[in-house]
């Protein structure tokens, strides 16, 4: 903490610092508060447990032969431990990941309001729009951390329990571990971006209430609802507009050449959600009376 404080010294050169420096000042504080919180650590640990449990379960049953079914990439794990990360992502994306992202995003403003710290941040004055931007950036950092935790925990447990080696991609090509590592990071980026739309929705809902649990639950329910709608074939005209529609498209990065189209489409979808719900959150929060 002390180190951070000192390195940020030039940020506030005069009493009235510029906006960017103030953003970073508050952002660093936000990250510290977020990751010093027991709940955040517990959620990351739970996410790390997903690939670990998968790997252990497969290791214990692999002698028995195993077989079809189960989530994507499951069958390949015994050949190459590096696939544990992918399986972990595929398992976590529909439920666990949105759940944790919903908790963090739903807590952003409503949590501060509930503690009463919101009024103190505002009279500091942190600046309402700046606070929203910082909160969204904090949620985005959590998305990235959550995804990376799954990927890294998966790679670690995979390497520990299974043979690892050159990876055979979905397209049939084989790439070295270095190439795979880059692809794994790209997948982590893809999944992180996938969660940003949901984060923006959570941020908006969070500005509507002072009850953080309500905002969290609503956000998670919306994530589930989007996926249910996405599973109904009769609604396929609606599917491209759902923020969850391309969540599982991260597997396209495991093709040679990489299918960038889904990366772009996903980024575009999420960007639209960020603009719409981020804008709504700003409009709402700018004029909101903070009484609690």
């Amino acid at each position: 903490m002390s180190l951070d404080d000192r390195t940020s010294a030039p940020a506030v050169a005069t009493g009235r610092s510029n906006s960017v420096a103030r953003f970073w000042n508050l952002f660093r504080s936000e990250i510290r508060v977020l990751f010093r919180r027991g709940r955040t650590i517990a959620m990351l640990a739970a996410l790390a447990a997903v690939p670990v449990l998968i790997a252990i379960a497969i290791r214990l049953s692999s002698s028995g032969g195993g077989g079809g079914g189960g989530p994507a990439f499951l069958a390949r794990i015994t050949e190459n431990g590096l696939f544990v990360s992918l399986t972990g992502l595929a398992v976590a994306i529909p439920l666990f990941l949105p759940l944790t992202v919903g908790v963090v995003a739903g807590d952003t403003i409503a949590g501060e309001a509930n503690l009463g710290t919101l009024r103190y941040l505002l009279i500091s004055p942190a600046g309402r729009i700046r606070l929203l931007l910082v909160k969204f950036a904090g949620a985005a950092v959590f998305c990235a951390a959550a995804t990376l935790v799954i990927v890294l925990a998966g790679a670690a447990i995979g390497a520990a329990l299974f043979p690892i080696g050159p990876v055979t991609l979905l397209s049939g090509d084989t790439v070295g571990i270095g190439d795979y590592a880059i692809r794994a990071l790209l997948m982590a980026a893809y999944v992180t971006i996938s969660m940003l739309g949901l984060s923006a929705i959570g941020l908006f809902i969070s500005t509507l209430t002072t009850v953080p649990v309500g905002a969290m639950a609503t956000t998670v329910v919306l994530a589930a609802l989007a996926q249910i709608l996405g599973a109904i074939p009769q609604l396929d005209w609606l599917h491209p507009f759902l923020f969850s529609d391309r969540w599982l498209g991260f597997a396209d990065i495991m093709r040679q050449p990489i299918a960038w189209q889904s990366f772009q489409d996903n980024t575009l979808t999420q960007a639209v959600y960020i603009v719409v719900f981020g804008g709504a959150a700003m409009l709402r929060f700018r004029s909101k009376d903070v009484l609690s």
Partner: protein
Amino acid sequence: MLLGLTSATSGRIQLLGQAMPAHLSDILPAVGALVEGPAFYPFLSGRANLHRLDSADPGGRAETRRARVSDALDRVGLGHAADKRAHAYSLGMKQRLGLAGALLTPRRLLILDEPSNGLDPQGTREVRSLITSLAHDGTTVFVSSHLLSEIEQMCTHAAVMSAGRMVASGRLDDLRGAAASRVVVTTPDVEEARQVLERLGVSTDAMAPSIDQVAGAVTEASAEAERIVAELVAAGVCVRGFEVARTSLEDRFVALTGEGFDVAR
């Protein structure tokens, strides 16, 4: 509303000579406040909470933050508990931590809502002397409180609000002085004392606080306290006690805002 947390339905607000909320970001760094009780992240230590608060403040220079946080904690006597988590703090400690938060940077104005709420007598006294010393150093301190004795001990000026309107304001002495002061005589010779007081222009109460007392209001027309005592003694009244009670702020407050539980309903 003063601090830009809620918007006003009508009227204009000026804080430190500038319009609010138009100049909010210019004014608020110079204002420290305690609003509706202190609030903290329960999972962070007192020190970390102040760090967090300071990083939101544009006037909070990062390079001096550690020193300023420590100073503020020492000022409110929380140095020993600075690294405990805030949820382990007692109500009084939270209150003091809240005060520390308002003192992180030099302020021109402090707005404190019930600053001694939840404090034990020592804490109340400490907070009072802290506030007095801050005021002495040139910071304007605006306290809102229901504890009128606190106000009497701390403040130079006061204003009385009733149902959202200011019904009186001014120097504390003027505010109290607007009503006449009272004398209370403790004596076994109640009847004689009453006659003397009446003769000197004091309108005595029908009911005294106690059976061996006579009380009455002193007005401009009546004699001064010294003469009253002399006359009482001269008249052969045994004076066991004599008190000039200035109108308390409480009496004045009740006179201004009404009596009973259903005031301002």
